[in-house]
């Protein structure tokens, strides 16, 4: 049985939410942010970005703030911020568990 949406964010979804933490951004700015932040480790396909933005909007994790021609800008909602922090906590626990286990080796 595969993971369902938001039972746990995938790495890509986590970075998309992260992109909106400090600023409102459009689709291409999100791609640039992720590329820069992960030093080209993570690339975001246009289909994936478009799907995630649509789903996040549907789930009210982000909301549209402006439409200028073909460019749409979004910002994170309180619900999106809460989900981001929840995921961050989960990842922190993972890292702590991993490091403590490694220290015992």
């Amino acid at each position, binding site marked *: 049985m595969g993971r369902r949406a938001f039972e746990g964010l995938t790495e890509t979804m986590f970075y998309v939410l992260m992109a909106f933490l400090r600023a409102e951004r459009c689709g291409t700015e999100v791609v640039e942010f992720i590329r820069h932040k992960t030093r080209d480790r993570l690339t975001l396909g246009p*289909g994936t970005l*478009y799907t995630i933005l649509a789903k996040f909007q549907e789930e009210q994790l982000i909301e549209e703030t402006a439409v200028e021609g073909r460019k749409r800008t979004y910002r994170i909602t309180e619900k999106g911020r809460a989900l981001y922090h929840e995921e961050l906590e989960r990842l922190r626990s993972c890292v702590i568990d991993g490091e403590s286990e490694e220290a015992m080796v």
Partner: protein
Amino acid sequence: MRKPKYSGSWYDSPAVEAWLEAQALEGWFLEVYVLGARMIQGEPRRVRYRLEPWNGPVGEPDEQQKALYEEMGWTYVCDWVSRLRVFRSTVPHPVELHTDPVAESWNYRPLNRAAALRLAALVLMAALVLFGLVLTIQKLLFASPRQQILYQLTPFDWVLYLLLLPVMVELFYSFWRDIVAIRRLTELLQSGLEPTGPLLRQRKPPRWLPPVRTALLTLLLVWIIGIYAMDHTSQRDYVPLEKWEKAAPVFDLEALESERLGEPVSLFTEVRGGWSPQAPQQVQLVYYRQIKKTQWRNELSQEYYRLRTPQVAQVLYDDLVPEDAEAVEAKGFTQAAVFPSRDRVIFVGRWENRVLLLNYNQEGELDLLEDLAPAAQAACEEVGS
């Protein structure tokens, strides 16, 4: 230019993408044309194709999506099938269209639902066709001779059933493969994996199958158009039931009954209609009288049949009239008879390709019925013409 001749499941995205890429290497490129997707010949080159499910209106993606995709090297080509769009990239190393399998799997959920609904609709249709066939066969085997005359299947009907059967089996198999392909892909993506090859075993249809399938579908289409045209020419004078309802009662049975019983009688009429291969018009007018609050009695019923040919009218007449019935001369009828039936009396008359039957709830009123018949016939002719 030619039609895309892809023989696998149209929803097996990895197989379709590989096929389109192989076609491009041979110099055939998928393009949208006036009558849908077509393969256009050009210089052979490497092109990447990706199929993407889309849960929205058919046609080009919206401006934002188009801009985003084009910026990253992907161009919309056309809709491959319902809810599945084709994108292509000609740049050497484009960013993959989808880089997160879990997010990609979200797009397949509506596709899965739509495929299941399509299969359910087909099963329902097949059940209705089979039910119709069983019902007709049951009528032919067990019905009265009169029903057998009216409901006998024409050779065209048998052709339809014989054509529908293989087409439905083929469609069922192909719809089922679509569902399996979509499910397998969704499960893979939800597990965080991208497919590495075709999802279904590629079946090579025998060489004779495509032309036979095309011939069957063409015949079916011709049959449907033919029946439609035939029905709209031979039934040009088909009279809708509303017209009969407005015309009813065709004669003043209320006055007749009131006079006979010596008190005012109120009746109401009901009109029923039908159609069969042999009788383009079957109308039954029933006159009811209220006996108690919830009890109604059929005072008189009038059945009018307009048949395909005078020969069929003759067969129906012979079936309706018992051998010992009294033949009468009735104005306007080629042949007529009146006879008692239990506590009722019946008149049957035939003229041209038409048959009229009156069934009256008054024992012994044979003459009265004979007198009523020309008026009923005139009314039927007037309403039915």
